[in-house]
């Protein structure tokens, strides 16, 4: 399953870091962050619950880039 989320982040490198962090989160199969459109597209693994996974994604992203936001 794929879902798109709006995000808020200031620099392109930070967006890359968010992407890395999201990819490493359990339950996430693949993630891409599009800095230009400020969107994060997350592909979830089968059986994963998007809501709880996204909480982890947000937590991991905050770790690498304090200044970011994902609108869940």
């Amino acid at each position, binding site marked *: 399953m794929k879902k798109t989320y709006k995000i808020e982040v200031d*620099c*392109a*490198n930070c967006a890359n870091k968010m992407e890395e962090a999201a990819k490493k989160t359990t339950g996430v199969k693949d993630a*891409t962050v*599009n800095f*230009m*459109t400020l969107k994060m*597209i997350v592909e979830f693994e089968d059986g994963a619950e998007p809501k709880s996974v996204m909480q982890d994604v947000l937590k991991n992203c905050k770790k690498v880039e*304090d200044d970011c936001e994902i609108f869940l």
Partner: protein
Amino acid sequence: MNKKQKKVLIRIIVSAVLLILIAILTSEKLGIPFLSDNGIVQLILYLIPYFVIGYDILKKAFKGIMNRQVFDENFLMAVATVGAICLGEYREGVAVMLFYQIGELFQSYAVGKSRRNISELMDIRPDYANIEGENGLEQVDPDEVEIGTIIIVSPGEKVPIDGVVVEGNASVNTSALTGESVPRTVSVGDEVISGCINMTGVLKIRTTKEFGESTVSKILELVENSSSKKSRSENFISRFAHYYTPAVCYGALALAVIPPIIRLIMGLPAELGEWIYRALTFLVISCPCALVISIPLSFFAGIGGASKAGVLVKGSNYLEALASVKHIVFDKTGTLTKGIFQVTGVHHSNMERDELLELAAHAESFSSHPIGKSVQAAYGKTIDQSRVTDIEEISGKGVTARVDGRKVAIGNSKLMELYFVPYKDCHDVGTILHIAVDDEYAGHIVISDVLKDNSKDAIKRLNKMGVNHTVMLTGDSKAVADHVAGELGISEVNSELLPGDKVSKVEELLDAKPSKEKLAFVGDGINDAPVLSRADVGIAMGALGSDAAIEAADIVLMDDDPLKIVKAIGISKKCMRIVYENIYFAIGVKLICLLLGALGIANMWLAIFADVGVMVIAVLNAIRALMVKNV
């Protein structure tokens, strides 16, 4: 500017003013006691603007270390500026932080600006639909309109949902969708697609799709999700940044430690301060921002510019691939030719052209076959079916009928043989209709699929751009295919193919070419979805309203003008040129400055240019990709 940016701007102004004031007050020329000679007082004074401008960077760097995300630009800046202050270079320390923030502000402003520019280009999202309710016109959310509802579009409004005109006529502007500035005229029975702007009359439209399935939604979805597929250049930059920043940090550390040790061993003074200063310069130069921001920005601007020209690109990887296309495979019908049959010649006739067409059109007047229709269209006047009697269709051969009492036989050569009428063969390619009137040969009509006006020009321009290998695939007969290819100057023809053969033919071509050269397939999206997805770049043209094509293709041309292919390749080449300019420029300047910094020639001021200046130039250059008018 948004709130965040305004706040940064105020901090920049305040700290810049403070910095200048302090620099003047503490200058030795003024010689104010306690200010010009007391280091501690100076330090405290300089720390005020330093914290005003840099507190968030320091905080982020600290948090980064806590979260084991050490090597980022916040860390670089924090180390460089704190280091400079420790060395007693207070002014430089504050200035570096100040310019870094100016650069960041500029970058975020430029990015925000181009984001807005591009979303304005794609400002085709309709906000409402007018439906006739109990109390006259009502504005409703397009999402709530069901299929089959009658919607009303007044002049100046956007058509919100795809549908068919049931009342009124108007000219509609499709430029937001196709880049085509000539308006299209629609009247009752015509299909209209969402996203067009009604320019003249009131239209009543019966919707044929839901909003979510309408052209405008499909296009917006496509554009918004583009660049989720990243190009090789972008991936290269992320990988580069991943290794580059730590490498430079260790390099700086080595620069600060190793030379002084060697000097000590050699019995020279260590000059530790000098080498640390050089190492700090190194750190300031090293920030990878210019690259990391400008490459995705170039692609984003390129994709945005392309959509303005009616070329939708599904991802920056396709834009990149398109720039290195050397082989283009065309589908014939609907791509290079119009896909509609027209009378292209009347030969060997002993009567007037119009008279012959009149007889032929009447004899064919009950036919619904495309060939019969095209004869009727060529005649152009209204057909009086009461003039026609005794119609007889002879299967596989043609038609005989009496028109105004004259016996007309119209069909292929077999029909002529049936009536023992001697006929003349035609040198032209196409479908030949022989006509006999009162058992005498009256000439023949040539019907063929006509070339699009711009096909020839497009092939010529493609050749000029370095696309030397053009291939045409068609299910048509060899004679027709060879003729069309000859006319257009296409280098290779494969005719009489079945639909499945097209895929294997494209696979053959893919295997035969060098892997660096890309192959594009251009089709009209009907029946060629498998080929579109098999080619390196699948281009669907004339895709307005065709969902299947939008799904399968990598690049969608909004109208069916073959010159759009040329435009698309031109845009991709320009975009890639800008991408490479930025990569070479940014890496080049950084490497030179790093070298100069290591040798002690470059001071911190040059380092600031290498960081902020390069980024500003690269961002401005990236925005150039948005301008596609003269490509």
